[in-house]
């Protein structure tokens, strides 16, 4: 047999029909919808008279515009938010799909709960009208973001039409040093190869540094595949993954477990598999990363400086650099470390899992957020929030001066409700530093939760390696 990559194996196992011209009709094993982009899918289907093909394979969750202050309800600080929540709830009920509602103990950010509940599985296909659906590639799933109309197609037919992707292998060689994380790996990759470096590709992330990551860190790594311009990315399931999946509520139960594991063990890329592209990044020398501009590609080591637009590859890129510098109020040559910040945010589908909270809490224990810095932590799911509270992490954060919130997407984006107040410069564990993403005029510096915690304490962008965990 011709050696195949994991991407080809999962693809081949899901082809319902070849449509010609390189396009396939692919089976979609799981569909997730949320209240921001899901109502349009379900309403569109209902209006066109289409039924839900397989209600048991479709899941809904309320995460995007819900408030995160304690005591929340359908009413949101964002005007009109309740209409999204109630419309989605009604449509989900009528469609007969499972809904993880606001009061459900399993509620949380869609890409956090789908693996947490064992719904996203190695080797499955999963879609959601949300660009960060690629996150669950971390568990070894082939998962990708779509629009609401394609969401309609997925729910009505349990399939999507896709061109066969080009494949890429990214080799993260070496081992990460202390204080350097999966977030730094993916930021460094995007910084090195650009925001379109993965264009049109499905990527397998591998190499020694990836093998050493826990599942939650792999989810972080895959989360920003979309910021790399790729169609999606994944990490092949291994012992670490299988151990992590075992026993989760929707994971294969005893009677199917052995067959499922055998299936997953056959998925890793064969020796000699062909790749359309290969990239490499050495992790041994990697520093914690931080972005200076308004694209995730504007990432540098935390000991780095703001680059000079004169060094940009062409006139368009130079104009983009200059515009980013003006928005970020920075000058070429300025060091990133030491830049005063006014707010710090830990949360989002990128970095809000228990391991993220543990790492940040270890650094914050016995320390205080600098005066004048608004700091908040928003756990990725209600389940992991309770686990964190059982470990006393909430007290560590609160004693350090962080607000401890209910789970949701929160300030990863500004929807007109909750805001950073008057704060302009923000260090954030999220995935997008676009102009205005976290609020009008807000200047976002992307970094790992460790770097966010260290910076909150220092009141300026700070290298977490300078602060030992306690």
């Amino acid at each position, binding site marked *: 047999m011709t050696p195949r990559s994991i991407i080809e194996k999962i693809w081949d196992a899901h082809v*319902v029909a070849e449509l010609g011209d390189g396009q396939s009709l692919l089976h979609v094993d799981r569909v997730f919808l949320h209240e921001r982009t899901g109502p349009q899918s379900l309403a569109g289907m209902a209006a066109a008279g289409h039924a839900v093909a397989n209600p048991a394979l479709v899941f809904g969750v309320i995460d995007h515009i819900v408030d995160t202050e304690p005591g929340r309800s359908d009413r949101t600080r964002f005007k009109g938010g309740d209409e999204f929540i109630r419309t989605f709830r009604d449509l989900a009920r009528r469609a007969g799909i499972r809904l993880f509602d606001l009061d459900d103990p399993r509620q949380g950010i869609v890409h956090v709960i789908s693996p947490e509940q064992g719904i996203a599985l190695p080797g*499955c296909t999963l879609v959601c009208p949300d660009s960060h659906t690629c996150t669950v590639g971390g568990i070894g799933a082939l998962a990708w973001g779509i629009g609401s109309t394609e969401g309609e*197609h997925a729910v009505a037919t349990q399939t999507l039409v896709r061109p066969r992707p080009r494949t890429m292998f990214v080799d993260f060689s070496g081992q990460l040093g202390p204080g350097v994380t999966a977030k730094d790996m993916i930021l460094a990759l995007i910084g090195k190869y650009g925001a379109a470096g993965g264009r049109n590709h499905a990527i397998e992330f591998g190499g020694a540094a990836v093998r050493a990551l826990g599942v939650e860190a792999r989810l972080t790594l895959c989360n920003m595949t979309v910021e790399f311009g790729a169609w999606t990315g994944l990490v092949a399931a291994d012992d670490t993954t299988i151990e992590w999946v075992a026993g989760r509520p929707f994971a294969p139960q005893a009677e199917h477990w052995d067959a499922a594991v055998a299936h997953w063990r056959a998925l890793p890329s064969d020796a000699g598999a062909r790749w359309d592209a290969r990239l490499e990044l050495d992790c041994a020398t990697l520093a914690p990363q931080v972005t200076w501009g308004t694209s995730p590609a504007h990432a540098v080591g935390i000991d780095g400086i703001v680059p000079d637009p004169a060094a940009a590859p062409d006139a*368009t890129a130079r104009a983009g650099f200059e515009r980013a510098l003006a928005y970020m109020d920075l000058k070429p040559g300025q060091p990133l470390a030491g830049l005063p910040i006014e707010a710090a945010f830990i949360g989002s589908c990128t970095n809000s899992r228990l391991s993220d909270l543990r790492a940040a809490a270890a650094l914050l224990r016995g320390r205080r957020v600098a005066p004048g810095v608004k700091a908040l932590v928003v756990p990725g799911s209600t389940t992991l929030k309770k686990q964190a509270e059982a470990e006393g992490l909430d007290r560590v954060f609160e004693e350090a001066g962080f607000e401890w919130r209910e789970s949701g997407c929160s300030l990863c984006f*500004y*929807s007109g409700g909750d805001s950073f107040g008057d704060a302009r410069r923000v260090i954030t564990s999220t995935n997008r530093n676009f102009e205005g993403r976290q609020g009008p005029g807000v200047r976002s510096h992307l970094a790992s939760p460790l770097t966010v915690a260290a910076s909150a304490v220092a009141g300026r962008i700070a290298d977490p390696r300078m602060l030992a965990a306690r």
Partner: protein
Amino acid sequence: MEQFVRLKALAAPLLRPNVDTDVIIPSREITSPSREGFGAKLFASWRYLEPDRRPNPDFVLNRAPFDRAQILVAGENFGCGSSREMAVWAIRQFGFRCVVAPSFGAIFQANCYRNGVLPVVLPKADVEALGREAESGGLELDVDLESCTVSAPGGRTFRFEIGGPEREMLLAGLDAIGLTLKRRDEIRAFQTRDRAARPWIWSV
């Protein structure tokens, strides 16, 4: 779905790279779970001045004749970021039927096909030259999906590529779900085989 066959129309330039869907339609402008009402909100944070939401006279789409342009000549990686289909709805409802760029965000590009908007990929140098010409306010382009060409004044013709199914869907204004449901038997057969091969996928 809305058809696209051929369009001869005025082009507006917006050559910045990496224009993301948060800029095309900011999240705070998405105030109702409807597919309508996004045209006036397109590029809201660039198009309007706060606090009174006055049109920003410096923004290209606020200036005649660009306010009636139907073709947008854009920078690379246009529509990157969030999957929000409201970005395409805003583009379409403003009046655009075609976006010409060196590259697109993948989800945005897929969303265009579903909404009767033609995303045309041309080499960066050609897009930048067309964008500079468009600044005069007098560039009319003739976009022909039958021949997969963009024609510009002076007899210049640029060929572009597009996937066969996407092209046919746009040319005929086909309903993608309806097309797929014609393969209902094949989907059922796949699922029957799959229930036996991967029962754990189905026992949820």
